[in-house]
């Protein structure tokens, strides 16, 4: 946990801090060096896909992790981001990078009414609306031939000239995705330290109490959703510029939304790097699976079973499981982040102890 206090220690950087900074530097080095280490363009393209998943999962976590409101339909925002970017380039001749930004802003605007409709009541309606949104978008983008190209798909013009070859394309987009990922992570980190973040986490733990304490729950939830939609749309748009082709079936796919949830949950929704870790694991598995077995129905079964297992046995993810294991060994941290659920359990344990005494 980032706020494990070091107040009791003598001055100077604590070992935990050194470890954390070292880890960050190592992570940055791996990302920076990956393109030159990748043996062939295919591996590099897998790297781009994994980074793209990491962007999407981290963006998802801006709403899912902070508020605990699970969206199964975030593919709606990434798909819309892709289409908005492509259509702005094709129909209004905008510069591709400007189109990417404007497209994401449009998607953020679209997320506002969606949020108003789905966030006034608690979790159940939010999930229902999120799924409905993907289904309705898939339906309309498939049928609206004149505007979106319909089920035939839409070709996205390349932002770089024809002289930039494929491997070079992959490398540039790898770094672009890395920049976007850094921005998303930075946003998460800043929100976590802000009043907004504290309010959002209070909503996650107990919305009634948060409201009673004066947290403007609805406004906070809406802010989180719109920010998340914005970054998700940027991720979708950047991916569209790289991939060069949009098909409504894959853009507005329930499965893509599921991957975002699975990655975040597996890595841990409460930690900054959880979704990134989940994206590396799940993204790599998905790509290997595809190249080994092709597009069979079996990846649905595998995704379904993995999601079920994570939900049943590891709903807090890998990172919290490991940190709590380490904390138990050190018994050090003086101020820990405790969820309402853990508190209730501790209290119940104490009561039971007292009762038996």
């Amino acid at each position, binding site marked *: 946990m980032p706020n494990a206090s070091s107040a009791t220690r003598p001055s100077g950087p604590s070992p935990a801090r050194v470890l954390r900074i070292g880890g960050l530097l190592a992570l940055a080095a791996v990302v920076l060096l990956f393109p030159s280490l990748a043996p062939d363009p295919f591996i590099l393209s897998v790297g781009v896909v994994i980074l793209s998943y990491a962007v999407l999962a981290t963006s998802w976590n801006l709403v899912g992790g902070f508020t605990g409101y699970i969206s199964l339909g975030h593919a709606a925002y990434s798909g819309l981001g892709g289409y908005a970017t492509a259509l702005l380039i094709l129909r209004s001749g905008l510069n591709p990078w400007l189109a990417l930004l404007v497209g994401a802003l449009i998607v953020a605007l679209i997320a506002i009414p969606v949020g108003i409709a789905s966030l006034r009541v608690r979790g159940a*309606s939010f*999930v229902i609306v999120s799924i409905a949104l993907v289904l309705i978008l898939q339906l309309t983008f498939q049928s609206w031939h004149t505007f979106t190209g319909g089920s035939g798909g839409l070709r996205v013009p390349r932002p770089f000239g024809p002289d930039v070859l494929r491997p070079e394309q992959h490398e540039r987009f790898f770094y672009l995705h890395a920049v976007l990922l850094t921005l998303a992570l930075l946003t998460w980190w800043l929100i976590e330290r802000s009043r907004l973040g504290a309010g959002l986490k209070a909503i996650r733990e107990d919305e009634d109490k948060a409201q009673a304490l004066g947290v403007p729950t609805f406004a906070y939830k809406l802010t989180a959703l719109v920010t998340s939609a914005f970054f998700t749309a940027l991720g979708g748009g950047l991916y569209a510029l790289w991939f060069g082709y949009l098909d409504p079936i894959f853009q507005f796919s329930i499965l893509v939304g599921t991957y975002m949830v699975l990655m975040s949950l597996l890595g841990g929704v409460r930690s900054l790097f959880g979704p990134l870790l989940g994206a590396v694991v799940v993204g790599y598995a998905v790509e290997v699976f595809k190249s080994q077995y092709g597009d069979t129905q079996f990846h649905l079964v595998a995704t379904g079973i993995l999601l079920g297992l994570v939900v049943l046995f590891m709903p807090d993810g890998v990172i919290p499981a490991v940190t709590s294991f380490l904390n138990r060994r050190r018994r050090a941290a003086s101020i820990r982040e405790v969820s309402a659920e853990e508190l209730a359990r501790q209290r119940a344990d104490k009561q039971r102890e007292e009762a038996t005494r």
Partner: protein
Amino acid sequence: MTGALFAQSLVLGILLGGLYALLAAGLTLYFGVMRVVMIAHSAFLILAAYLAWYFHERTGIDPLLSLVVTVPLFFVVGYGMQRFLVSRLRPISLTTMSVLLTFAVALTIEGLLGFVWTGTQRRVQLGYSGMSIEVAGVSIAVVKLIAFGLAAVSLGALYLILRRTSFGRALRATTQHPEAARLVGIDTDRVAGLGFGLGLATAAVGGTALALDYTIYPSLHWHWIGPLMAIIVVGGLGSIPGAAIAALLLGVAASLLQVPLGTTWAQTVFYLALFVTLMIRPQGFFGGRLAQRF
């Protein structure tokens, strides 16, 4: 739109609405007893349709008879699912985690259906498939009438179980206030399990009805879960009469809009209704206190 066409669409809408009503009642049951949004409901619906199709394919007997097997089977599976999967989730995050869990089940079922029977579209061919009867200028396909009959009978049975039996009273008590129900001696865990079984049994009935009249394929369940979830929100989460009324109204609306707009755009009426309901009355039109909190 001519009068005859209008009458035709209206009748078709009511027939379709009946099926929606039965399936939405099942979804409402799960939500009532456990506060669970059961995404896998329509995946089980398609599974039952596949079982009916396969039964007919292998034996040549009328697929309706597969109900004798699928209804008890699904009841047991539903009971087991509640007792062994859903009840393991932590109560504090039950609603959201159960969505993910049942979603995972839905993906698994869809994948297995494609794995076992491939993605090929399937359709049951019966002696009476093409038959229709004509009443006052409106022609109604016999299979649609049977499907509606099945749905109506099952809904009636469900109503009688909930209103007239002591189990029904226990189930309604559990829905209204689980703690109070436990205090008066109701084994709410068992009731919740049985409620789940009952809900899944509606998917078995619905799936058989579906197999009579529709071409089925593994990913078809997404076309059903969207409208069904819209229906339970519009009707008010947890209210069975609300779900039934919303199902009939929206079924008729979709059917009427199909004439000028075509099938795809007519489907959007469900999502539009969902959106409008959440905007102006988030607890739905017939939901009680329960719906306001979810």
